């Protein structure tokens, strides 16, 4: 369906201040890392073209402010999101504890059609740093409890796992978008489905 149409995937990165949201986005889009990123005020985004299953899609990755009080303005930025990336710092336990509230707040503000099936991806960032406060097991347990959210351990500084994580994010976002489009195009899809199921016996099976 509409495979030639240009696809735009909107991805929102959320998480506490200083967990590496801007760094992850810049590492993925520009393959660069800097210790000198400024704190994000308001919101910004970068775009990147990626190929998924032979389809070229544009990812629009939104970077937001990490302090909780700025979330109330989030609704303007969250609208139309296809995937939400939650980030925590594996060396800072508080950033892991906040994940629930980031997820809940996103669902409230973005109000996706099917909150239970909306794709999230969790990134445990700064794995290059010691000491580690949150184990992979603990993070995965949290993911399991949230309808099996995919989990990646990344280092924006080293570029570790960043590409893989964002590919998964793109796939999830694309799946979400297709599903949404299906919902909107329920009627034509049903016809397509019935045509495919009908055995081709050489005659025009359609009586109308």
């Amino acid at each position, binding site marked *: 369906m509409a495979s030639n149409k240009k696809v735009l995937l909107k991805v929102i990165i959320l998480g506490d*201040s*200083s967990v590496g949201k801007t760094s992850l986005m810049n590492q993925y889009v520009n393959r660069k890392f800097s*210790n*000198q*990123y*400024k*704190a994000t*005020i*308001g*919101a*910004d*985004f970068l775009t990147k073209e990626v190929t998924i299953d032979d389809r070229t899609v544009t990812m*629009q990755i939104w970077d937001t*402010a*990490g*302090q909780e*009080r*700025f979330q*109330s*303005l989030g609704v*303007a*930025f969250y609208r139309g999101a296809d995937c939400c990336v939650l980030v925590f710092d594996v060396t*800072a336990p*508080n950033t892991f504890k906040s994940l629930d509230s980031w997820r809940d707040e996103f669902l409230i503000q973005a109000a996706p059609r099917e909150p239970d099936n909306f794709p999230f991806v969790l990134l445990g960032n700064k794995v290059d740093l010691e000491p580690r406060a949150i184990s992979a097991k603990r993070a995965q347990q949290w993911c399991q409890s949230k309808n099996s959210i995919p989990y990646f351990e990344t280092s924006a500084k080293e570029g570790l796992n960043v590409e893989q994580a964002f590919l998964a994010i793109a796939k999830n976002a694309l799946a979400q978008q297709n599903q949404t489009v299906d919902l909107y195009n329920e009627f034509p899809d049903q016809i397509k489905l019935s045509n495919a199921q009908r055995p081709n016996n050489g005659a025009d099976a359609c009586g109308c």
Partner: protein
Amino acid sequence: MDDIVGDKNAKFKELYNQDGVFLRQAGEMYTPMFGCTGSLYLWEHISDAESKPEVPSRFLEWRPQDFVELKTALDEGSEEWTLIESVKKRCRTSSGNMVKDFLNSIGNLNVCFSNIKSLRCSKHDVLTTFYDGSCELLASFVFPTSESREHFLGTIQAFVRLQPTRRDKSLFIVYDAASPGFKDLEKSFAALDLKTDSSFWSLLKNIKSNPYEKSMEAFAKVTGYVYNSVDDEEHYMAQDDLQRSISEIGDDASAYAVYDIPNCLPMRVDYPRCNPLTREQWRAQLNGEGQLEDVESIKTLIFRGGISPDIRRVVWKFLLGYYPWDSTEKERHALDISKMESYYKIKMQWTTFSKEQEDNFSDFSQRKSLIEKDVNRTDRVLDFYAGENNYNIFSLNNILLTYLLYNFDLGYVQGMSYLLSPIYMLLRCEVEAFWCFVGFMKQVMSNFDYDQNAMKEQLKSMYLLVNFIDPQLSKYFEDHECANMYFCFRWLLVWYKRELQQDEVARLWEVLWTGYPCKNFHLLIGVAILEHERDALMGDNNGFTEILKFINELTGKLDINLMINHAEGIYHQIKDADHLTDAVRNILGIPVAEASGLQSKPEDDRSPRKGVSEPDEIEFEKSIYSNFLSSSTGRLVFLFRP
């Protein structure tokens, strides 16, 4: 005339005479004359020794010329249209003979001028209605031209004052010489600017040719009512909603666009920037005690040109409240000492925390860690803050931690480090920078409130200002889901710090800290930028995403002196605009007296309306509105006379 005068010998002087005045409405007894055209006179009694006390000093007289049936659509242009509806039906059934007979028996329409307690005349048309103060209509006339009505209003102002009511700018309370406080009302009617265009007559013509659509026209009347009753803030939204709803009715409905007064801004005047305040100028203002002689002129110089870098260090301490403007050299010396002492007292509170204490004080330790993370990424590209183990970063950290203890309720919020950085970089002293930062925070503290309401309010204000200055641009924002103005968030949170170089920030902030020329001048800086970039913003059918990107990428590209210059020009345009609204006036804190044009008095203003014998304005307005508004539901209802 005889009826009202009651003395056939009384002599009268003609003050005003105008032919071709329609009688729209008057007391019941004049019903057959409604819709007739006639001559309107204003008579003044020439008193002499024989004058009887009951002879009124002035009265209006209307003499019918001929009977002209007003077309059904004459109701255009006044809030009384619903009442007219029934009157017109009667009008159509009456014959010419009836009128003639009636005139013979009743005579001319007379209104004793002292009975007129208020009158309604809107800018939209030439309809003028007189009330007796208890919401009874005395008479309602349609003048042939706006000039003739202006002449009339000019004439009556020789002996009465007209004061617009607060909620309805087209309704004026009439104060005569007997009213208490009459003399306080200096406002002349010319200043009220009741100019009309000829749209009334062209509109009337339109309606005649489209009687079928008459009911549609009723919506336009509702529109007019809504416009006069809603807050200015909601005005634009209401207008858009109405415009949309009308456009949805169909193509033909385009003839029924929402009519509004064409609002023209005064010409933009260039206020060239001046040279910065120099050391010599500053010193010249100090007297023997080291006290500033003329603070206002110093502030004006700073507003006009900023401050020379070599004197900035001293002057910022005044601008940010570290030193009072009227302090002497000796007092400042004492302040230096006391401020140092109190800074270190507060600082000691956190420097003496043990590790254990900190671990048990998570509210503190979490904020401490946030400060540490933020200062380590604040202006690190500047040499002053660059490199590992930079002492200046350490100082930023100390100041923000001390501020955290100084104002623990607010705590530390992202953005604060950017407000501190230029201050510390200039002063290079923890104590001075701390207290100056405290002074700055007093001005912008609400930006960091937990509920972010102050930020939302500013974004809303920004939209209203854009709407006032460049309605096309605000309409574009509205149509492209950008009316929330969130793309200006960063500008307002840290006063353009992230968009400018450090020396540009210093220049902008010192200008803004003067508080000149008005409240919230920082919003006008934003309006100036948006207006400057308007073509790019509206190009390529940009939506919220594209506009946000565009705005974020303006960083490092702004000419801040030019923007200050434009913002000042915009301020004067707004201040001098005839159609200045209360909402816009409140945003910029423009006092009523300073602005020109048609306006109401602020709540606290002393005005003669409080006089005992005066009609209670609020009650009076209420009584008029109650004819049209169902007060319990707030919905519009139309009352027809039986």
